[in-house]
């Protein structure tokens, strides 16, 4: 049977973090699903013989792995389309090998109503080229006062609940949120920050902030809330995910909570693995992030936590900002950096320098978020969605912010020497991104 929808990716280094597979072989997709995967699909020189049955893509030995799942993406749609739309974010994602983005509810209006979840899903279906899963607000209007209709929101398609960049400061409400969410088995995702301690703060508190004359944000502002949340998870037996952690002290709290068997996971951003407070340099606002870039000891603790498996997930924390929000004195500038297109190569730095095995690193961006969110993707297995990334691991280049697909260009990695780039991104069996001149030699036959 000859089916144009049947595509064979041959001569690939298959990496499936979910099963631990790392072997040369081939993968066949049929329509939107993976049909078969394995080392023995096309033994020997069989490839030419089947070329009339399949559309064949020769991967030339490059890595073929599940497409990345980015669990923390801020998009300007609705309300701030000049920063980023679902369409432009999805193009950026595709260029970064990301096949699923989880978008945050901090929009205008806030995604706190079932009809708005539906709006995001329909807009994504019509304009986005990767999978888009909305998180809904935990509290109405992100105001931290009243819970949203979690049951209805979940039915409408909300994949988890979070107040995005806003912490829930009221402990009773947080307890109720965790407790009520467990009715539906819903995941509560929280940004840990004590606003009374971060007030006016612009960067990590320490010697460097003192020298720059900037008010600092102490690590304790994060750790206090992480400790509180852990106590509340213990009380409610809820499902909890720390959206992003930045300091060693918070990691210790999370690890102890995991040892006690609580249903807790946590993520770190690629930039917190790569950068520290000194990168702020002379008031460079593209390095202003939330949480702030921390001390070098904290960065090392993040890398170490990831390699030990204490940190589950890597996110881009993609947060587009317009020039008028960044070309300001440091204290007045908005925090945030775009990251969808640098997530993979920046994370790969820790594979190239030997900190973390490749399979573990990819797991934190594929199988781990898929499992936490209950997504069918994130694995190379028959029946799974054909969401794939083809990666040239070794390709070295100097990253150029001008080439970003994202509508906002606020990346801290402009001019950074990176290694590893995406050659092709496949969503639901269809190529949504192909690097020009990639696989030129053999290419598609």
């Amino acid at each position, binding site marked *: 049977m000859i089916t144009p929808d049947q595509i064979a990716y041959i001569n690939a280094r298959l990496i499936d973090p979910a099963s631990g597979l790392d072997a040369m072989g081939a993968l066949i997709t049929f329509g939107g699903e993976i049909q078969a995967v394995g080392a023995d699909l096309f033994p020997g020189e069989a490839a030419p013989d089947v070329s009339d049955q399949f559309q064949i893509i020769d991967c030339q030995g490059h890595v073929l792995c599940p497409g990345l799942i980015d669990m923390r993406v801020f998009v300007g749609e609705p309300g701030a389309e000049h920063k980023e739309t679902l369409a432009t974010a999805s193009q950026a994602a595709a260029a970064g090998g990301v096949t699923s983005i989880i978008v945050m509810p901090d929009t205008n209006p806030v995604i706190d109503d079932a009809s708005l979840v539906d709006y995001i899903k329909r807009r994504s279906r019509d304009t986005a080229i990767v999978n888009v899963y909305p998180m809904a607000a935990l509290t109405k209007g992100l105001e931290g006062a009243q819970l949203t209709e979690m049951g209805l929101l979940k039915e409408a398609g909300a994949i988890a609940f979070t107040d995005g960049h806003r912490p829930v400061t009221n402990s009773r409400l947080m307890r109720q949120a965790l407790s009520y969410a467990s009715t539906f088995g819903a995941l509560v995702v929280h940004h840990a920050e004590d606003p009374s301690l971060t007030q006016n703060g612009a960067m990590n508190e320490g010697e460097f902030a*003192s020298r*720059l*004359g900037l008010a600092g944000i102490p690590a304790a502002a994060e750790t206090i809330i992480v400790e509180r949340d852990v106590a509340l998870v213990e009380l409610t037996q809820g499902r909890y995910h720390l959206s992003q952690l930045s300091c060693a002290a918070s990691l210790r709290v999370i690890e102890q909570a995991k040892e006690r068997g609580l249903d807790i996971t946590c993520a770190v951003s690629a930039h917190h693995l790569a950068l520290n407070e000194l990168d702020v340099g002379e*008031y460079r606002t593209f390095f202003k992030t939330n949480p702030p870039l921390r001390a070098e000891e904290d960065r090392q603790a993040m890398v170490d936590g990831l390699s030990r498996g204490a940190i589950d997930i890597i996110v881009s924390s993609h947060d587009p900002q317009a020039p008028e929000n960044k070309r*300001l004195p*440091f204290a007045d500038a908005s925090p945030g950096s775009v990251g969808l297109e640098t997530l993979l190569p920046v994370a790969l730095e820790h594979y190239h320098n030997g900190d973390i095995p490749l399979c573990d690193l990819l797991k934190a961006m594929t199988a781990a978020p898929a499992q936490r969110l209950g997504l069918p993707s994130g694995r190379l297995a028959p029946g799974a969605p054909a969401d794939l990334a083809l990666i040239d691991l070794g390709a070295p280049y100097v990253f150029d912010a001008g080439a970003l697909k994202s509508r906002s260009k606020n990346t801290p990695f402009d001019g950074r020497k990176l290694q590893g780039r995406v050659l092709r991104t496949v969503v639901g069996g269809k190529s949504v991104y192909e690097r020009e001149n990639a696989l030129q030699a053999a290419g598609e036959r």
Partner: protein
Amino acid sequence: MSASHIPPPQAADAALFCARNLLGIEGLSPVDIKFLLDLADTYVELNRQMEKKRALLRGRTQINLFFEVSTRTQSSFELAGKRLGADVMNMSVGASSVKKGETLIDTAMTLNAMRPDLLVVRHGASGAVELLSQKVDCAVINAGDGSHEHPTQALLDALTLRRHLGAIEGLRIAICGDILHSRVARSNILLLNMLGAHLRIIAPPTLLPPRAARMGVEVFHDMTEGLRDCDVVMMLRLQLERMTGSLIPSTREYFHHYGLDRQKLKYAKPGAKVMHPGPMNRGVEIDSAVADDPEISLIQDQVEMGVAVRMAVLDALSRNLPNTSHEKARV
């Protein structure tokens, strides 16, 4: 003390001073500082003459752009510019134009289009003057940015000390009070450290920047301990307007522990000098009996040195301005 024994700045030093802007003490070398202080010495003498006017900056336009209210710094820069022959314009950008939505960079670009040669800027945000300097062609002088730097204040303090005590190297100097919010303290710590002073800072922990001890100073919380053997006591203004939350319980309690009066001054070296960048909160951080005693207080001298130092800075930076038309201006 007369400055007559100080030789005029050497041509070689002048050639070495190639800075385009004065954004902070950070970035200056000891040679730069000596050059600026030597040059300022000559202006102290000039300012004491009947004829104080020079034509050095004739044809140059100096704009004093103050986003924060200032009396003494702004008038000091104005006088300095006028005495050197520049056309000086003062612009106070209050809250009103910020409310109109004009950003710092818009303001900078607008002024830049008017072709000033020297731009003196004060702004409430740390790093704002540096940001502005990236967007204009003229020489930019930082007249105070947030809690970051106030380089001309540190230079005038150094000039005052040098003229009264000879050399700064080896002096034991205590900086007391609201270090946390003080750009004066940061610039002075950098400058006085570079010139070889032994520095102490004295304040309650709530008024110290985190990790202050890493800035090359000894930290004291007890004033009587910290003042011991000090040659100079620099008092800082308590910046109540910048304080959020509860950093000190009351000004009464603050004066009791950290206000400089004759009693506490006894712990310093006999004959120790007292300085204050002004404006003073009398009875909060300093007692009038100390502030107004000409045997002890250098506060009036600081103001006088301020004009001379600012003339030196304007002079030095203008030497590095292009003498040709703006079209052929720097790259």
